[in-house]
């Protein structure tokens, strides 16, 4: 035995459009299919129907009756999104669903007795769930698809056909409701069979012997038995929302206005499944035949509409489509938020959902490569680093005291390194020799990847006299204004300390490092590129 619910969205093209533009719900709106004056009316709101509009009217005819009519073309994107939303809303009640056609969904409701005492309550819950998605539906529940479909169309939703009562329920309906093939229909008409009940009363074996397999299936449906069982659908891996715009948009703000509503609907659907968006794909249809597609990777799954909209804004500002937009769709690749076991005695931790939304918001605020968890590079350059997604480990079970302070002197790294002009003097003595009040000793190296310094010719012994920012041209003025000013006489200097790595690569690092104390009070870490002989400051001890 099976029990099936049929969900039907009356006037589906109109309902799908009003889901995208809910502000039109109480106005005279009509949906037309086709182009120009040949477009035919397929659905209209109640105010429009009261004015006399009927399906099949052309747009001029409709305007003649209702000059203030709001006309909208049939939008496949809206209807597809609404159909997905309808199925997802139905699946919040039962997971086994079959998509029949636009605006019609069958649902297996057998086994819901523990949750719903009566089947009418199932129908009411389905109507409530779909209404929350902006789709008013009618629901019928029966043991066969046809009976459930007919019950859904009958007035007073939800309608429940009791088990075993399908044949009786269908009996008064005309035979055309079964949509038989023309040959079979004419045969039945010659037999004088006019209603489904009359067909059901015929002996099954006789119908089969005369009409074959087609007749047998029709006879079974007339008796309340489905020819095919319910075929559950596989849920799609992505969620998609979009619409065709009434007129092309050439600026960003109007697009974001309509895009926000679509993202709201997308977030609502994700929320219904307990999912969040990990990757958002933006697809735009451009005038006349262009396409624009971008993918936005999120640092953490989120369904925060504001964050998603900001990311879309940044993406479109950075890479504008370059042509008027006539349609769009957002596709969300879902993911589950990481779950964290909270500790009763340990330090408080962050809510995973809130953390994900925060990270996405920061990502939108600062841009890519600006938010994350720092990680050292497997190299010795001080400016090198990696940024990894921020996924803090769970907190310890108990509060623990902090580890003992190390009294370490930190150094700020200059990114990028600041070009310097260094006044030096070569000491008359060969290496090794002292500079100013310091001694040059190149034996020590910073990098384990360094080759033996002894293999190289000894660097010239230098005496550092003064240091200043390198003069710049006018084009660099803006960047230079952001750099710290480094200027002064060298009080004490220590070096050079050689750092050499990646000598096998195209961009090897070969530097002589110095620690210098300047008269401005700063203690800097500077280096000289061995190849170019240029000086840079790459950090300050602070």
């Amino acid at each position: 035995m099976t029990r099936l619910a049929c969900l039907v969205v009356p006037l589906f093209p109109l309902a799908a459009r009003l889901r995208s533009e809910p502000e039109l719900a109480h106005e005279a709106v009509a949906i037309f299919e086709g182009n120009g004056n040949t477009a035919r009316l397929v659905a209209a709101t109640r105010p429009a129907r009261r004015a006399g509009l009927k399906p099949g009217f052309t747009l001029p005819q409709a305007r003649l009756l209702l000059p203030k009519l709001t006309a909208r073309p049939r939008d496949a994107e809206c209807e597809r999104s609404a159909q997905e939303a309808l199925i997802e809303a139905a699946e919040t009640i039962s997971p086994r669903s079959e998509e029949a056609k636009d605006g019609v969904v069958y649902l297996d409701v057998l086994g819901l007795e523990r949750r719903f005492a009566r089947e009418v309550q199932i129908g009411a819950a389905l109507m409530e769930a779909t209404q929350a998605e902006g789709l008013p539906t009618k629901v019928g529940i029966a043991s066969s698809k046809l009976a459930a479909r007919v019950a859904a169309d009958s007035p007073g939703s939800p309608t429940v056909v009791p088990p075993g009562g399908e044949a009786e329920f269908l009996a008064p309906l005309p035979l055309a409701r079964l949509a038989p093939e023309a040959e079979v229909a004419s045969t039945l008409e010659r037999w004088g069979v006019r209603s489904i009940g009359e067909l059901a009363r015929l002996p099954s074996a006789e119908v089969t012997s005369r009409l074959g397999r087609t007749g047998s299936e029709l006879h079974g449906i007339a008796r309340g038995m489905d020819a095919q069982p319910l075929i559950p659908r596989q849920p799609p891996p992505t969620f998609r929302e979009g619409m065709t715009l009434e007129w092309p948009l050439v600026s960003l703000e109007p697009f974001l206005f309509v895009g926000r509503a679509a993202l709201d609907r997308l977030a609502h659907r994700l929320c219904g499944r307990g999912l969040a968006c990990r990757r958002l794909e933006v697809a735009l249809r451009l005038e006349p035949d262009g396409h624009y597609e971008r993918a936005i990777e999120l640092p953490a799954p989120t369904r925060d509409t504001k964050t998603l909209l900001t990311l879309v804004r940044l993406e479109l500002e950075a890479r504008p489509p370059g042509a008027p937009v006539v349609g769009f769709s957002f596709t969300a690749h879902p993911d589950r938020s990481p779950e964290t076991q909270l500790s009763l005695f340990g330090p408080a931790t962050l809510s995973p959902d809130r953390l994900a939304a925060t990270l996405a918001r920061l990502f939108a605020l600062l841009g890519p490569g600006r938010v994350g968890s720092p990680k050292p590079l497997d190299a010795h350059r001080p400016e090198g680093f990696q940024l990894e997604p921020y996924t803090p480990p769970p907190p310890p079970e108990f509060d623990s005291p902090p580890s003992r302070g190390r009294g370490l002197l930190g150094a700020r790294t200059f990114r990028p390194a600041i070009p310097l002009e260094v006044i030096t003097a070569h000491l008359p003595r060969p290496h090794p020799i002292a500079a100013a009040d310091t001694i040059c000793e190149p034996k020590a190296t910073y990098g384990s990847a360094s080759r033996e310094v002894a293999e190289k010719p000894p660097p010239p012994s230098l005496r550092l006299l003064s240091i200043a920012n390198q003069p710049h041209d006018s084009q660099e003025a803006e960047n230079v204004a952001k750099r710290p000013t480094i200027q002064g006489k060298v009080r004490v200097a220590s070096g050079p300390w050689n750092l050499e790595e990646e000598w096998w690569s195209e961009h090897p690092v070969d530097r002589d490092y110095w620690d210098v104390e300047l008269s401005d009070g700063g203690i800097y870490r500077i280096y000289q590129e061995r190849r170019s002989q240029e000086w840079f400051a790459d950090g300050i001890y602070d």
Partner: protein
Amino acid sequence: MIHAAEPQNALELPVGEPIPPAITVPRPALEISESRIPTASAIRKSLPEMLRKRVLSARRLSARPATQRWTTADPRLDRLLDGGIQRGTLLEMVGQRSSGRFSLLLAMLAAVTSSGHPAVLIDLGDGLDPRLAAQAGIDLARLLWLRPRRMREALAGAETVLTSGFPLVALDLGSPPVPGGRGAEASWLRLARTARDRDAALLVSAPYRVSGTTATTVVMPKMSRPLWSEHRSGSPPPPRRFTGLRIEWEVQKRRGQSPGDRESWTLTTAAVVNAVDGGETTTARPAPVVPAPVRQVSEVPAALQSWRKTG
């Protein structure tokens, strides 16, 4: 003729109507059986020890609980901060170049993250070296690093992370010139209030005062002196090395208390710490360093002169 407006609120009296006398409800005598107090304490005793302190008696409910402090595991820094990093407040550290300001910030981040708390570093100067941060004891997995380019982004980021529940947010403005200047005072006020409402500690490290009157505590360096290894004889003489900073910091402002507390300590470079550790990065203690006198460039050290003569 002017008519008095009808009261919109049902509780509002019409104009000219005498105010009725206040209704006084006789308060019943407080009847608390003293015999029940031991029962409450017995319940408290039955709880695990870690939970006992969190259960307050009804008499103490009106009293605002003292704000929690994180110890920095550095006795001198704790003394300077009157017990540690105070939650719910804004602590501003002001210092010019090479004053040890960044090192103190790293030490505080290390203390908080090593005890299992998440923390945020908003690095406007983009000066964090992750390797050095790990050596300073920061649990990098618990540290969220933000690299804003402008002050406006830094302030907006700080507000976002404070609102989301991070217990410690460190905002480092880097070396001057700070992109964006001091920021609007209203922004600092909003940040301080958010930190108070969320019971989070907001550390601001800046080259000059930025937060105006909103900071609960302001600390500044009183002295900063670089330390260089001593001259030693030899042929050739071994190199002198920069070994650290001797710093002294002073409390310039502490809300509700008198300022003026000072603490001084020595910060040691990573090279020296690693040399002492033997390459390990776990239990390092700074080596005792004898400061060398600072000499002008024009001076030629005696050791060098003698070396030249002999060479």
